């Protein structure tokens, strides 16, 4: 059982400030992802939790106890590193046994020969072996125990690293981009395995990644960091559908959310020539975020019905390039009112999709926007939430 609390963590390396006061509560048994671009401080934060770095100020609490003075080994954590960090000259079995040897044996009994000849060493040996074999079986690496890390594939090394972390029965699992050295296919597979591991173990997981897909698919909650600040913490759906800032909206979602400029005045939002009946608490230029999958193309056959919805507000769209992604297509282009601003539309194909002929009618398309799916941001990047009750009324009038 481990509840992890970070209180106003600050850290700088020399003159560079890396973390500007991070506060975060991680519930017991939760899978939380720290996600952000490289250099945002997420790995530093993880190392501070692990005790490998000391924060300049702030506090790390595990189950309510401050851990600042505790060594990494006393925090009841396990950590998996990006490059696996296996001990290169030890066999897989020895690698996995190390945390147990360190935890169960007194210093004098850990020395190479002493482990076999001292009573303490001999007594602990069966327990250590049993612990290693149990975890090895669970991760299906029990046939590899005699090999050296150099003789293993990337996926196998990853499993050994997981095993070494699991074997000491930690309460908190810290992972620093554990999948980034795997190829794409293996990544998806190990991703599922880690999620299953979390479900079956019930441990608290803190997972660092720069890949928003990993963060979204695996975690119960996602904490998005940018330049040392926590932008938003929430469930994957919260961050996707209800972002607090433009930065969050842009980071989450692939392909990236489309941003176009508009203006808010007199209870209306103007995009190009089109006036949308949306009342925002501001007047002046705003930014409008439109997810690529929410733009409908009503006049094109060959797309599934959801993408041909007739309701909504029409905009003119200049098509420039169509990418075929298999089950769906990605259309690159721009709205007629802002031709320099690239807009992407993702639409699902239907049975009648006929390749290039689908767009035989030309490059200018009428597209429709669904008001409920638009995200509005002020000039400062903060989310502006419209009052939908008034908007709906305006629509029905």
């Amino acid at each position: 059982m481990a509840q992890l609390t970070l209180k106003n963590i600050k850290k700088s390396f020399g003159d560079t400030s890396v973390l500007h006061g991070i506060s975060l509560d991680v519930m017991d048994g939760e899978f939380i992802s720290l996600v952000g671009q490289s250099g945002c401080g997420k790995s530093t934060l993880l190392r501070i939790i692990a005790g490998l770095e000391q924060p300049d100020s702030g506090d790390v609490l595990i189950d309510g106890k401050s851990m600042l003075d505790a060594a990494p080994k006393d925090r009841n954590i396990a950590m998996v590193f990006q490059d696996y960090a296996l001990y290169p000259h030890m066999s897989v079995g020895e690698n996995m046994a190390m945390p147990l040897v360190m935890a169960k044996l007194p210093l004098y009994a850990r020395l190479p020969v002493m482990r076999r000849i001292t009573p303490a060493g001999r007594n602990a040996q069966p327990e250590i072996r049993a612990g290693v074999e149990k975890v090895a079986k669970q991760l299906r690496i029990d046939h590899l125990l005699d090999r050296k890390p150099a003789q293993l594939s990337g996926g196998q090394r990853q499993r050994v690293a997981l095993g070494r972390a699991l074997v000491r029965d930690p309460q908190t699992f810290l992972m620093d981009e554990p999948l980034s050295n795997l190829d794409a296919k293996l990544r998806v597979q190990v991703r599922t395995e880690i999620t299953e591991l979390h479900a079956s173990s019930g441990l608290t997981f803190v997972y660092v990644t720069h890949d928003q897909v990993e963060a979204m698919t695996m975690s119960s909650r996602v904490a998005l960091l940018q330049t040392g600040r926590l932008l938003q913490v929430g469930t994957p759906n919260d961050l996707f559908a209800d972002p607090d800032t433009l930065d969050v909206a842009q980071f989450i979602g692939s392909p990236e959310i489309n941003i176009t400029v508009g203006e808010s005045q007199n209870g209306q939002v103007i995009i190009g020539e089109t006036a949308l009946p949306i009342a925002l608490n501001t007047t002046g230029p705003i930014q409008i975020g439109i997810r690529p999958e929410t733009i409908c193309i009503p006049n094109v056959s060959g797309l599934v019905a959801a993408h041909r919805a007739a309701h909504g507000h029409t905009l003119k769209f200049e098509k420039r390039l169509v990418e075929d992604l298999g089950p769906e297509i990605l259309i690159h282009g721009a709205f007629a009112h802002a031709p320099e601003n690239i807009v992407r539309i993702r639409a699902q194909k239907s049975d009648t999709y006929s390749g290039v002929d689908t767009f035989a009618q030309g490059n200018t398309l009428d597209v429709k926007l669904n008001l409920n799916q638009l995200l509005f941001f002020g000039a400062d990047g903060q989310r502006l939430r419209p009052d939908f009750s008034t908007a709906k009324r305006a629509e029905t009038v």
Partner: protein
Amino acid sequence: MADISSPSSVPTWFDRIKPKSFGRFVTTVLLFIGAWIMVFPFIWMISSSLKPTDEVYDADFSLIPRTFKGFENYYAVIFDQPYLIFLMNSMIVCTGILVIQLLTAIPAAYALAKLKFRGSTILFGTVIAAITIPINVTSIPLYIGLVRVGLLDTYFAMMFPFIVSVFAIFLFRQFFRSFPDSIIQAARVDGFSEIEIILRLILPAAVPAIAAFSVFSFVAHWNDLYWPLIVVQSQDKMTATLSMMQYQSMFDTDYGLTYASATVVTAPMVIAFLFARRLFIRGITMTGVKG
């Protein structure tokens, strides 16, 4: 070159050694000259060790001795003086120096390479600066100090100036820096103490560096004449290299015996080098330092 090759179709001994091009021919000649420059002193040494003193001085030089005094010379060097004691002294001093050097340099190098602490840069700068100070500079204060504490003519006196090798600290620090930080961090999470990180993780990875340094250190102190000459007074503490000096006096030097002595003193290192050749060469290429 075309004029070098013979047109015969049957391969002769010459075909096997003939150069493939003029460039190769020049290279081979240059290598021959280089090898001769390196080997000639050894040949001279061995040749002179078989001669009586007056023939060593002979203007009419020949490699083959006219009066063969080899047996007498070598017998005198090996049996008339405690040759094995000298060898043992050299072994004790060199091994002692090496062991303490490793014991001091490896933790220091680890701290400089991998631990973050205030002043580490200045400390490392000091190490670099200390490399530039030769033993000759500190020898007088060291000597006076050893006289004051009455430790002259001991093994301790022979080892003392060399027990901390700044070169070793520098060499190991550079080597340890390439050791992945994440493995050290993983070890800390797993509960290793810093000493255990060095013993269990860094040392096994540093075997090539340690082997290379050991060869450097051992050879350097085996061949060292300067410091033993200063602090050793009695024959039973003489190192092998120092023992050569016995045949020189103010009035007379027996060169035949001196050369024979030089031969038997050099021999163990040459033989050891032949066996450890590969390690030694790897050490040189690794550090980029000329031997």
